[in-house]
């Protein structure tokens, strides 16, 4: 059994429940013993650090301080969410590099009788732990249902490999750990050059057209390369590609159907775990084709929700545009 302190993060309990469920399901066969940080709080996601630095770092460091109180044999904190992983690693790194920041943050933590010594914990992403600690050989031994014939598109997103403070990954621009893991599971791995491109993050709320273009690049390339399913390690990426795919299709008049799953879900399938335990069916773009390809009996699909009624128009009414014959007719009138 390998012991790790787990920082789940908010999304694992909500939008990425499939990730959490599948992680719990595969941790037993992998021999992963995950102890959750007690009374953990939100990491601040991508925004807080750019709003106010000191409270943002204190918010993150509170989790590190709690984790270090819980650290006995192990000093490794594992975060499955990319944003959480990046924030924890960032706080640890900058508290180490800038002693002044470390001091201020610890002053804030002292209000809650907490203290964190920068560098005392080893902050890891779940994929890093599975590939480098557990090892691809051990993973391969657990495979009972190889993902043969399934064309998977490995997609990491931008936050995990960069800036890679403590050199955990093979390369910042083109890390290949996920590719190798999926190969071990028996899948047919698509060469996907956009594996570390940004999914748009919170851009759908800020500028939907920009976000849709970013998603279109990711989804169309996966589709052009004959991918059956995209596989990610990040709840944010999963949410954007899954949740906004419909709106993106509407925006561009396209008809893509590209499901996206968490890598832990595919690991679970390969280990022969029931799809239901792995959170299958929670995705919006149905991944039923994955189960069909592998011949896994699928749980009954929930009927699609009735289409939302279009919103009432708020502005003033628009004149209808002219049709071509109308324009021709108008021209003739002018000539007369």
């Amino acid at each position: 059994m390998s012991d790790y302190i787990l920082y789940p993060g908010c999304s694992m309990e909500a939008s990425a429940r499939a990730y959490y469920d599948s992680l719990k399901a595969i941790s037993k066969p992998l021999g992963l013993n995950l102890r959750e940080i007690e009374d953990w709080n939100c990491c601040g996601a991508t925004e807080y650090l750019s709003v106010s630095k000191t409270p943002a770092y204190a918010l993150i460091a509170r989790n590190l301080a709690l984790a270090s109180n819980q650290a006995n044999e192990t000093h490794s904190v594992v975060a499955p969410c990319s944003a959480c992983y990046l924030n924890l690693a960032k706080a640890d790194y900058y508290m180490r590099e800038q002693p002044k920041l470390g001091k201020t943050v610890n002053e804030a933590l002292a209000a809650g009788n907490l203290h964190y010594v920068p560098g005392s914990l080893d902050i890891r992403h779940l994929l890093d732990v599975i590939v480098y600690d557990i090892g691809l050989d051990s993973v391969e031994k657990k495979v009972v249902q190889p993902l043969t014939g399934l064309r998977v598109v490995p997609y990491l997103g931008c936050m995990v490999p960069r800036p890679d403070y403590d050199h955990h990954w093979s390369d910042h621009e083109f890390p290949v750990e996920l590719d190798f893991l999926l190969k071990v599971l028996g899948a047919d791995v698509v060469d996907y050059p956009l594996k570390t491109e940004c999914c748009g993050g919170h851009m759908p709320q800020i500028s939907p057209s920009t976000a849709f273009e970013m998603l279109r690049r990711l989804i169309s390339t996966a589709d052009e390369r004959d991918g059956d399913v995209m596989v990610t390690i990040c709840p944010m990426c999963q949410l954007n590609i899954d949740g906004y795919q419909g709106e993106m299709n509407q925006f561009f008049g396209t008809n893509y159907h590209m499901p996206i799953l968490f890598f832990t879900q595919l690991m679970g399938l390969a280990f022969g775990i029931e799809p239901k335990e792995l959170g299958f069916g929670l995705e919006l773009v149905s991944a039923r084709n994955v189960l069909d390809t592998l011949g896994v009996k699928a749980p009954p699909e929930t009927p699609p929700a009735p289409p939302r009624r279009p919103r009432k128009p708020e502005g003033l009414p628009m004149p209808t545009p002219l049709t071509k014959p109308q324009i021709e007719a108008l021209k003739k009138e002018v000539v007369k």
Partner: protein
Amino acid sequence: MTDNIENTSPSDAQEKIGVYVCHCGTNIAGVVDVVQVANWAAQSLKHRGVVIAREYKFMCSSPGQDLIEKDIKELGLNRVIVAACSPHLHEKTFRTACANAGLNPYLCEMVSIREQVSWVHTDKVAATEKAKAAISGGVERVRHHVPLQPIIVPINPATLIVGGGIAGIQSALEIADAGFHVYLVEREPSIGGHMAQFDKTFPTLDCSACILTPKMNSVGTHPNITLLTWSEVEKVDGYVGNFSVTVRKKARKVDEELCTGCGICQEKCPKKVIDNVFEAGLGYRKAIYTPSPQSVPNRPVIDVPNCTYYEKGTCKACDIFCAPKAIRFDQEDQILTLNVGNIILATGYELFDARRIPNYGYGRLPNVFTSLEIERLTNAAGPTNGNVVMRDGKTTPKTVGIIHCVGSRDKNYNNYCSVICCMQSLKFAHLVHERTGAQVYNFYIDIRAAFKDYDEFYQRVLDEGTMFVRGKVAEVTDVPRNENERGKLIIQVEDTLVGKQRRIPVDMVILSAGLEPRKDSKEVAKTFGISCSVNGWFIEKHPKLDPIATMTEGIFIAGCAQGPKDIPASVAQGAAAAARVLGRIEQKEMALEPVRASVIEEKCSGCRICNGLCPFNAITFHEDRMVTEINPALCQGCGTCVAACPAGAITGTGFSNDQIMAQIEGLLMMNIEPEAVTA
């Protein structure tokens, strides 16, 4: 070899010490009160043997040296202290001055009050006190100095040159033409190095083969050159003037005497192998091969791991067709011992492996090429007869992007500039445009076209309509964003002159990969007893004033082994190394510094701790007597073993325990009061 210690001890004669304090313009005088220091030395050190103390603006100048010489003659000085710069710079100057006045030069001691005092302090009072302490230490030390004589060693006139690229070839020809024997050892089956792979050379666009092959042939036929190709140096023993070098001559499986170089064996051999060395992986060779038709010597080798005969026991096609019956399947490696006086290392470079930058796609995207591949592609004798085509072997590219600084000037890979890539990229731009009419883009950080006629070539390439985009390329991708980009390689780059991101679709990408030291340069350096920089380039004796010698006497470096450089610079350095060796040979013998470590055998316990520490391989262990001995000609006097010996059995001439302890005593005699310093 002469005995280097005369029997005089400090107590025999009354020391008469002269102290000379140098201003070094304002270098020292700007921070240290030299007049005060000199007056202090004359007054306060009188009882310790100082009879005269002077200060002068430039002690190293002729009038400065005359001061010392005059005092030695008139006052009968028998010890001299020069408080000035580092001994690295002017120890020789002042020792010579002493010798001119009849004093043994090793009775002169330099105290560095520039590098160790004035250049590193700003507090004038404290610096002056520190200078006094340093001089006090020097005075105590010099009293223990004894007259020494330099060690004279004979010079074997034969020279070993390692590496048969253009630098090694130049060195070999210079020395051989002067009438002395040269052994040229080359790892590959033929000499010529990287230059033999090129089509054209910048900036004149000379045909590389046309200017190189005459030199290669001269090496091959020169009566004074013993050419050992397909060979490697395994071991180097001995010292300057008298090296003994062990060379492994790998089995060619071909009798070089009988072979006529007709080439029928290569024609008939049924086994085709990808040539990763000469053709840079872009072409094929046979299992019995010479790298190129112009190879010197024109004798093939059998590639044993790929030969069908060694794999299956049958075939022998080469043997059947060989008219003079020169194939020797049972030939074995030969070990040769060469005796030489000097060694020149010209082991060259290796190309940066562009697969290390995965976002440039080399090895993943078929139409991304490295610079060396393009050299072969443009070469009329290359795999495509000089046609610039894409990886499918037939399509001519319509647009080509050349990326500079791949693996160079990048803190993720190599910090240094690889020097040749700018000019090489300009050459490719010209050649590709000339052969295909393609639109060529260059993506550069800075254009470094220094040296004669280089910038003119840049102007010429600009006039030809080549596009230049200033910015470091982010990635090369085959993922299109619009229809114009479909089926192309897209170069994503920040154009720093416009301040905008650009995406430029091209058919072919050329990565101008940087130069790296040989993978085994650190082991090679250890074999020859020289040092490598962190990057792995061989370290020269002085970066400006002696880029040819190394800290090990008798070992010289030339060409890219010392650092990235182009062909003219490699040739110049090769010739310069040869000139240095010829100077040595002409002298027939040379004087070595007598600063050497020696073992006091009675004290040596035979623990062998020192044995592995010597960077110059000067230490040998006598199993029979269980004692260690230091070869004085090989020893460079670095003192590592002296410090390491737990029994104190090793002593350094000029750095004896007495001398070091006396110097420390002298330093401590100056009790620098903290208050005095801050005042």
